[in-house]
């Protein structure tokens, strides 16, 4: 799959309380969760983000709780994919399971600045920073994960 959008840069160790504070977890409605995405870090994030935009972060993105509400909120506010130097493991699973594309790019923070236009080809593992006219090789999903993604998520995969 290919995605193109404006980069919204975040730092290292963005945790699930940053992505969606626990006090909103009494809801599982994606649009309601999306309203509060990243609000502690950037009050205007949800207003700024346009459909198709890309979140770019440093190490250990999504650390903390197991709440699936986190990738659900990111996806529902219009973000097309997340690029990070590494992902916390439960967030990684959850993103795959809810269909939020995630891409591991070591040194992502160095290569992509806030506001850069970025193109991602998850299948080929290529990330193009259109603004900087540079191209980077990202990791691609391991074959096993790819097979879950291809089936359209875990629930379809287990119904095989």
């Amino acid at each position, binding site marked *: 799959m290919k995605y193109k959008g404006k980069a919204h840069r975040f730092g290292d160790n963005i945790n699930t309380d940053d992505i969606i504070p626990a006090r909103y977890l009494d809801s599982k409605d994606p649009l309601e969760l999306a309203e509060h995405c990243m609000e502690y870090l950037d009050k205007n994030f949800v207003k700024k983000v346009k459909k198709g935009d890309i979140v770019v972060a440093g190490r250990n993105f999504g650390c903390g709780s197991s709440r*699936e509400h986190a990738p659900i909120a990111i996806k529902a506010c219009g973000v097309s994919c997340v690029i990070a130097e590494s992902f916390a493991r439960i967030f990684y699973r959850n993103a795959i399971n809810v269909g939020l594309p995630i891409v591991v790019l070591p040194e992502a923070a160095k290569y992509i600045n806030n506001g850069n236009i970025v193109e991602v080809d998850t299948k080929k593992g290529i990330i193009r920073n259109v603004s900087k006219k540079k191209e980077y090789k990202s990791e691609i999903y391991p074959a096993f994960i790819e097979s879950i993604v291809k089936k359209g998520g875990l629930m379809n995969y287990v119904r095989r």
Partner: protein
Amino acid sequence: MGYTITEKILRDHAVKKSFKPGDFIDAKIDFCLGNDITAPISIEEFRNAGAKKVFDKTRIALIPDHFIPAKDMRSANNSKILRDFAGEHDIKNFYEVGRMGVEHALLPELGLALPGNLIIGADSHTCTYGALGAFACGVGSTDLAAAFITGKVWLKVPETIKFIYYGKLKKWVSGKDIILHTIGDIGVDGAHYMAMEFSGETIKSLSMDDRFSICNMAIEAGAKNGIIEPDQTTISYVKNAIRKNKPKRKSFKLYKSDSNARYKEMREYDASKIEPQVSLPHLPSNTRPVNVLKGVSIDQVVIGSCTNGRIGDLETAAKILKGNKVRQGVRLIVIPATQSVYLEAVKRGFARVFVEAGGIFSTPSCGPCLGGHLGILAEGERCLATTNRNFMGRMGHPKSEVYLSSPAVAAASAIRGRIAHPKEVM
């Protein structure tokens, strides 16, 4: 070539028996759980998939513990979703107010998490059960939904870091200090995707309550699981739990790592040098010895949670608070993790100590740990808590602060009104 305890448990549960670290496996689960935040999504996914029957009703627990006793109508509704599903599928391991506890304290106590088990839970602190010599890890709601149907989970086999602790702990130093010190050493992604195996003579000398605190926070170092080889302490704890609560599954298996097992890394610690630790906002890895933080004033102290709400934790806190008063201007909130911890604390006079000191003694709940209820912080307030996360806004206002510590440091600090070493008040 030998195997680690984590690899052995995974091997005995894997559908395909031959694998190495980094491989993906399908594994059979012994037990799974969800709570009032995560399970409503699992139940919806289960229904959307058209599933009619759970794989085994005796191997599922549903525990509303985060926003309960229901803090509002929506929370009440989420608990109701669990109650209805449990009723529909005749799931007996459904624990309501009056029978409940914080999930990771409750399941071991009931003998539902056993040595050698493979357990997944839609809650990141599921790794707590590793203290029993089980493989336990947190997953998401959809993973749990899939497990409800298949009784299986996909896992990537982790590499293991072995942590070896030797030496006798100083007075007032606990399992919590060991894990905070370790996370401070390796960082919040220091064990990213790996198993943390805690070993050595210091670990062997610890109570189960201390061991649970250690494994509970493995996730705070990014680990997949934390694990401790079972020994006599484990066996007595488990036998006692089985005798008292008569769970359906009574047999368990004791695994140990081979002496020639492969480790990604070995790290040794002289535990006799570890001081009581405090983690500063906003990462659990921001640890300092308590003595360098003595000037830091606090507005609230919380003693409880799946990390430190067990009877040993309350006993330590009560020992320090007995005959003392919580400083004017500080709110002390003590939350036993389960009903039986609550009862025991009443019987042994700890509840009285907390109330006479000027604190409150609450019904079990995750409560303020995740900023749910029962002690939310206002802008600019600071709390010292025995919980597990000090992320921005974790306990309330984004401009409030959470510091993490052991129950001993928390109790002493409640008396002083600032961060204090227990020996200052004892």
